[in-house]
């Protein structure tokens, strides 16, 4: 039964969109907000405190990906990080070549940055992954040309949760001297990230996907060899000249604390989410006529993306009001676009739009999962009953 959002208790299973702020993160932000009333680049005591807080956060962010602290550049979010990596990396290496390779299933920030580069005269190859969402390293190798300067592939897909084999993909690039950028916004805190093992040049991170605040992110930039990046903005020369602008200590402190918590708790929490996700999928699979999107096992533990036969996606979403999930239906995004990711995986439009992405987070419980499955069962039953046979 579709009810009003006010009456039915809400269940938040949209942690891939954004995660609730952790109370400890909130406390860290407040402490920084109250202590650091100064400008981090100015020469006085509050400025010094802000700078110290920022450097501590830098170390905390770096630790999650096992990187040195001075390889972390703070940004306003993964969107900016993606752009700094892709626009900055492509423009900064323009003289070496003007060809980029990425995937059709990347985040909009990556795809739109690539498109902007095409308007600047770059050529962009967008590979299509297999139906399971995985990119074959051989397919990547075949796409590289002597003019290729940068490859961008995400670690965890934000719609399906599919985990790419970045190390294998990066090895292909490394052999050809091609920069590798990895959007790890969905990966941080959900799957282990080790820059040493991945051997990539640039990694985008976001705070608000890890129970940190919206509006702050980071770009990992390899120290040696250091990729040449053209900044997106200038003035002040902060962050090694790569990202000018006053640093927001409270935002950065929040990101630092969020990453610290994620590092401390990573393995246990991943296992817990994995358990919840498996339970959810088992319950949904039992409803019949449902398809799991993306690879069955090579997936992050927090995302379960399911297509439902025999119902309209938008109707399903309205039917489930109060269950906060993402939908493949056109109405679900401001952009008004059906899921281009599911379509790239070969799902027919009708099935792609009748898809729901359930995504779990630190505050998701077994009860949430049971309740969500119960509501989906009821909604699906009603809508399927309404449809012609």
């Amino acid at each position, binding site marked *: *039964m*579709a*009810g*009003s*959002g006010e009456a039915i208790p809400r269940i938040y299973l949209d942690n891939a969109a954004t995660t609730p702020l952790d109370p400890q993160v909130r406390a860290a932000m407040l402490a920084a907000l109250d202590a650091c009333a100064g400008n981090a680049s100015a020469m006085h005591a509050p400025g010094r405190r802000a700078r110290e807080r920022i450097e501590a956060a830098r170390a905390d962010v770096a630790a999650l990906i096992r990187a040195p602290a001075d390889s972390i550049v703070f940004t306003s979010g993964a969107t900016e990080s993606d752009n700094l990596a892709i626009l900055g990396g492509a423009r900064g290496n323009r003289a070496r070549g003007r060809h980029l390779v990425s995937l059709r299933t990347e985040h909009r920030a990556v795809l739109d940055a690539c498109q902007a580069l095409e308007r600047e005269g770059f050529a962009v190859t967008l590979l299509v992954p297999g139906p399971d969402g995985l990119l074959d390293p051989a397919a990547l190798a075949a796409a590289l040309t002597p003019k290729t300067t940068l490859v961008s592939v995400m670690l965890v897909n934000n719609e399906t949760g599919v985990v790419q084999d970045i190390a294998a993909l990066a090895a292909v690039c490394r052999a050809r001297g091609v920069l590798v950028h990895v959007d790890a916004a969905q990966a941080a805190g959900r799957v282990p990230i080790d820059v040493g093992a991945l051997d990539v040049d640039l990694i985008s991170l976001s705070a608000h996907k890890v129970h940190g605040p919206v509006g702050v992110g980071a770009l990992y930039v390899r120290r040696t060899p250091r990729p040449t990046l053209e900044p997106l903005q200038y003035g002040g020369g902060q962050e090694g000249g790569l990202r000018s602008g006053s640093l927001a200590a409270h935002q950065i402190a929040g990101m630092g604390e969020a990453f610290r918590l994620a590092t401390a708790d990573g393995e246990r929490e991943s296992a817990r989410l994995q358990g919840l996700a498996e339970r959810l999928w088992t319950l949904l699979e039992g409803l019949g006529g449902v398809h799991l999107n993306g690879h069955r096992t090579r997936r992050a533990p927090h995302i379960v993306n399911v297509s439902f036969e*025999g*119902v*309209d996606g*938008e*109707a399903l*979403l*309205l039917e489930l*009001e109060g269950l906060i999930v993402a939908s493949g*239906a*056109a*109405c679900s995004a*401001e952009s*008004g676009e059906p899921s281009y990711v599911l379509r790239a995986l070969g799902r027919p*439009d*009708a*099935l792609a*739009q*009748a898809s729901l992405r359930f995504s779990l987070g630190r505050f998701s419980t077994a009860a949430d999962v049971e309740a969500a499955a119960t509501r989906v069962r009821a909604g699906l039953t009603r*809508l399927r009953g*309404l*449809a*012609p*046979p």
Partner: protein
Amino acid sequence: MSAGEAYSEEVRRLFREAPAAGRAAGAGWVAAEATEPLTGTRVRWHLRSEGGVITDARYQVRGCPHTVAAAALAAAALKGLPIGAAAIDFAAIAQRLRAPAAKRGRFFVIQDALHAALLLFDAPSA
């Protein structure tokens, strides 16, 4: 655009209650269906007539909330109409339901199914 803003109260109510939804068969009943594969929208009408007048109308629908609501309004409007002049003003329904332009195309599926069903009344066996 949020769910709350995307649907009027009437759309929400009609979608929730789906009055006169369902199937029916028997003496005087005909049924016909139309499909739009891209969005997967499907509508099946079940109409009953007596003396050249539609006396009952049911629908089965797989479609978005606006489509369900439009089918419900159409079903109510059909009752009492003469078969030969059972025209439903879907433009008016779209306006009443504040359906965005992208949605209005789907109402053709309702209309197509309706036309197909009405043709069955005209068939020689009737």
